[in-house]
């Protein structure tokens, strides 16, 4: 028996492993993920990526699987953190919290602006916060190299005012000096010194200039996102490689082309016509014809947009003196310029004017005026406005350039710590670009230079009793699962208590009356209830008893954990539905088994011995006849689980079935895994119980 149990146990573990791998793989190969479901279809790819990082979904699938299985703390988090991790229960909420441990105190961190704040948990449970910038790590070699490059750039810079350049050079040298002396200074002093330098530098920046830099960047982006330029890019790519376009892109292409047509229609009717033709061919999926049509528009279009593309380039690289020259050189004479070019240029100037409107009203006005004058054919006016814009760039360029350089004159830092959402996090201050991320705790989008850039969600792993947190709710899967399991268990056990005696006794009656009308009636009834789909049965019951007769509620609303017992009428229909699913099946099994047993010689012997009928049937017949139904009931748990999923979703019952359904819909992997493990255990356990019950009923069977 022991050997048998051990073998069963090993097979259970193997099955669980296999199922868990399969579930991970299925959810991995499928398109879309929990992030898509959580953010909805209007989220940008960057937003999705950010949330994906926070959920740890960007890590390779085997890492995520092992994290789920054996936990992330020992193998992934602690080596990076270089401190042991502790899991404690919060005294206020009772939730599980992860802390790093240092010299016996528990510690976590958070970012405030560019400052690192340490949160220490004192032995008495209270929490103490303090500035903890000394922990920042600096990659000295890389930063020295990077700042060296900035210094070289400064030396060759022609845009900055001379005095600005000298001053900035002095600061760079200063920073480099601190970095070079990293071996002599204590780490804390080093970081402190660097911060002093940076604060000093920040004072040099006109706060307006920072927003202006951003506005110019977005102006450059506006130019790039112009339908004409987009069309041009598409046309160029499509003329090279048709196959690179999938159905989705082809679906949106006519829309982009339509916008381009709208822009050029006024000035270049023949170009608009060509674009329309291409659009028609794409709609008809004549890709070869579309390619030829697009090839014809490539050259005239690139002539049209080229000047502005160059402006966008120089804006992006920050060479504002070049920008000024380019703006002055913008074609604005009607005689060398046809109507189409004017329209396109005016359109792009409009876009740029809008982008800088709030932070650079002066420039915005000039661009607006230039666009308007161009449209009205007033060349003089347009020329003046563009000259003014160029002059603005000459004037403002050095200030912007200073702001831009200062932004890069910081020392990048990083730190692996533990955050307040139970992740091990790599915090980075990076000054190359600002960064958006969506904080899970507040749900808001935050923009800052210091940011968490890598997450390792902390969990202990299934083998150590932690099935992880739901991706969807961020709550521990275990707690939810236990609650749902309890609800389902209530439902299932009530159904079980009703089904077994009822179906066995009905089966007995049918079996004893084999071939008589009552047997035929019960058999057909059993067949029909078994065969009819459970959701259909449930719907018939709801329609009859709650819609038409209004006797019973058609949905289950559990307000608290005890409301099942205070409002038992809510459970009637779910239980009846579940009962009907199982009833017929067990009934037919018992009947067949009973008929079989009644024909056995020992039954005849019992009759001939003159034993009382009752005793024969119950003692000799039923005991033998029950063997088959019991195995069947046990093996039928999987089928019952399917029934429970349907019944729960039909009546809105908050049980395991609805939990699994929602988790599957959201692709909430950890939740699905947890549910799947429960299911597999249930299936194997019931099989085991069936086998053991079998040995009791039939002493001839021995396991071992």
């Amino acid at each position, binding site marked *: 028996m022991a050997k048998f149990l051990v073998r069963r146990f090993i097979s259970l573990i193997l099955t669980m492993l296999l199922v868990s791998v399969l579930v991970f793989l299925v959810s991995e190969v499928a398109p879309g993920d929990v992030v898509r479901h959580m953010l909805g279809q209007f989220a940008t790819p960057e937003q999705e990526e950010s949330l994906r990082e926070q959920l740890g979904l960007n890590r390779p699938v085997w890492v995520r699987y092992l994290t789920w299985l054996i936990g992330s703390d020992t193998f992934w988090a602690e080596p990076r953190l270089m401190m042991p991790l502790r899991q404690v229960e919060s005294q206020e909420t009772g939730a599980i919290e992860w802390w790093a441990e240092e010299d016996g105190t528990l510690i976590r961190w958070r970012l405030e602006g560019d400052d690192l704040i340490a949160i220490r948990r004192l032995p008495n449970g209270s929490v103490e916060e303090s500035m903890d910038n000394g922990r920042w790590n600096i990659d000295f070699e890389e930063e020295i190299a990077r700042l060296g490059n900035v210094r070289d750039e400064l030396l060759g810079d022609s845009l900055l005012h001379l005095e600005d350049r000298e001053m900035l050079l002095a600061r760079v040298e200063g920073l480099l000096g601190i970095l070079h002396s990293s071996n002599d200074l204590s780490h804390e002093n080093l970081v402190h010194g660097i911060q002093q330098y940076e604060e000093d530098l920040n004072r040099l920046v006109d706060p307006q200039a920072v927003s202006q830099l951003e506005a110019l960047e977005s102006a450059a982006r506006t130019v790039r996102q112009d339908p004409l330029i987009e069309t041009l890019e598409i046309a160029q790519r499509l003329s090279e490689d048709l196959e690179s376009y999938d159905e989705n892109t082809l679906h949106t292409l006519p829309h982009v082309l339509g916008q381009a047509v709208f822009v050029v229609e006024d000035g270049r009717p023949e170009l608009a016509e060509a674009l329309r033709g291409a659009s028609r061919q794409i709609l008809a999926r004549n890709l070869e014809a579309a390619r030829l049509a697009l090839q014809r528009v490539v050259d005239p279009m690139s002539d049209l947009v080229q000047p502005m593309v160059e402006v966008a380039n120089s804006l992006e690289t920050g060479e504002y003196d070049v920008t000024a020259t380019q703006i002055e050189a913008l074609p604005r004479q009607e005689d060398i310029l046809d109507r189409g070019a004017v329209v396109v240029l005016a359109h792009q100037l409009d876009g740029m004017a809008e982008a800088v409107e709030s932070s650079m009203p002066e420039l915005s006005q000039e661009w607006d005026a230039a666009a308007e004058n161009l449209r009205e054919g007033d060349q003089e006016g347009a020329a003046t406005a563009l000259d003014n814009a160029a002059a603005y760039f000459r004037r403002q360029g050095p200030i912007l350039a200073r702001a831009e350089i200062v932004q890069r004159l910081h020392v990048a830092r990083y730190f692996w710590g533990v955050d307040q959402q139970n992740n091990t996090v790599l915090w980075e201050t990076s000054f190359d670009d600002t960064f958006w991320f969506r904080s899970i705790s507040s749900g808001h989008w935050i923009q800052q230079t210091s940011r968490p850039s890598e997450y390792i969600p902390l969990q202990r792993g299934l083998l150590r009793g932690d099935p992880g947190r739901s991706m969807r709710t961020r709550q521990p899967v275990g707690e939810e699962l236990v609650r749902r399991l309890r609800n389902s268990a209530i439902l299932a056990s009530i159904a079980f208590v009703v089904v077994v005696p009822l179906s066995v006794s009905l089966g007995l009656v049918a079996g004893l009356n084999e071939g008589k009308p009552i047997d035929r009636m019960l058999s057909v009834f059993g067949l029909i209830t078994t*065969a*009819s*789909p*459970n959701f259909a049965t449930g*719907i018939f019951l709801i329609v009859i008893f709650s819609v038409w007769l209004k006797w019973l509620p058609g949905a289950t609303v559990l307000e608290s954990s005890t409301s099942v017992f205070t409002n038992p009428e809510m459970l009637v229909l779910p239980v009846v539905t579940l009962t009907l699913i199982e009833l017929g099946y067990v009934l037919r099994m018992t009947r067949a088994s009973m008929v079989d047993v009644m024909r056995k010689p020992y039954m005849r012997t019992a009759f001939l011995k003159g034993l009382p009928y009752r005793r024969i049937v119950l003692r000799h017949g039923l005991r033998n006849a029950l063997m088959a139904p019991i195995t069947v009931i046990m093996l039928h748990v*999987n089928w019952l689980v399917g029934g429970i999923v349907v019944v729960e979703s039909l009546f809105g019952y908050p049980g395991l079935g609805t939990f699994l359904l929602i988790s*599957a819909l959201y692709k909430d992997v950890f939740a699905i895994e947890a*549910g799947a493990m429960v299911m597999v255990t249930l*299936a194997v356990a019931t099989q085991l119980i069936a086998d053991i019950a079998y040995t009791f009923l039939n002493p001839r069977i021995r396991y071992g």
Partner: protein
Amino acid sequence: MREKQDLPIGALEISGTSFGGRLRAFLGTIWASRTATVGVLLVLFWILVVLFSLVTTLDPYEQDVTSVNAGPSPAQGHWLGTDDLGRDLLARVVHGSRLVLVLAPLSVLCAVAVGSTLGLVAGYYGGVVDDLVMRLLDALMAFPTILLYMIIIAALGASPANVVMAITIGGTPGIARLIRSLTIDIKSRDYVAAAESAGESPLFVMFGEILINARGPIIVDAMLGVGYAIFAIGALGFLGLGMPPPSPDWGSMIARARLHIWSNPWAVVWPSIAIASLVVGLNLFADGLNEESFRYQ
């Protein structure tokens, strides 16, 4: 749906030599059982409905704004009523039948193809191959089928191809197991040994000798499988994982109409009756057939 019983080999072997004779004997078996007769009639009814859907002018997408969520009203031309968008329920039920009656047999066919290959290979070669295949199938079987469907369809999205795939995956283990046990039995028969010693390739022995001789139980099992597949397609639709709108998929019709069950229960009742009658019909048919062929032995 039900535990697959290991039928004795030849359960469906009906005597007679000519094709006509065998067909007559087969029909005789069906008529002899009252349940099988009722089942066949129900299934035939739905096959007729499918044929009707090919010729009818009823439009499952046309909206009648003058009667929305209406009960049965022959006067307005809606024999079974309309749904929440004013679409004729009769038209939708009729057109929905085609979807179900094509997808279900197709997916069972796929499951039988995959399952019999796996079962034959496992049963014929035995040993490590057998262990490997059966462990894998056991893992799949330990998993509630409906949950398997849910995960696959939720992951891949509902389309006819994905539904067929999901049902194939869900149905394969059962069929493979059945065929494996049949193979192990048939493998020891003399004619298999004869074929082997005549130098036939394992492939021919498996598919040409063993599979052919195991066809009886497979047919009964496939019949039950079709019933289960229809149920599964309906259940998926009911759980909100059915064919995307505006498809007249019965399960999706139920899921949608459930929201309006208080104002118009008919919209839920008709597709439910449709699925129930078709599934019950197939089960009665398979059951009756099973019973009769046992009696003949």
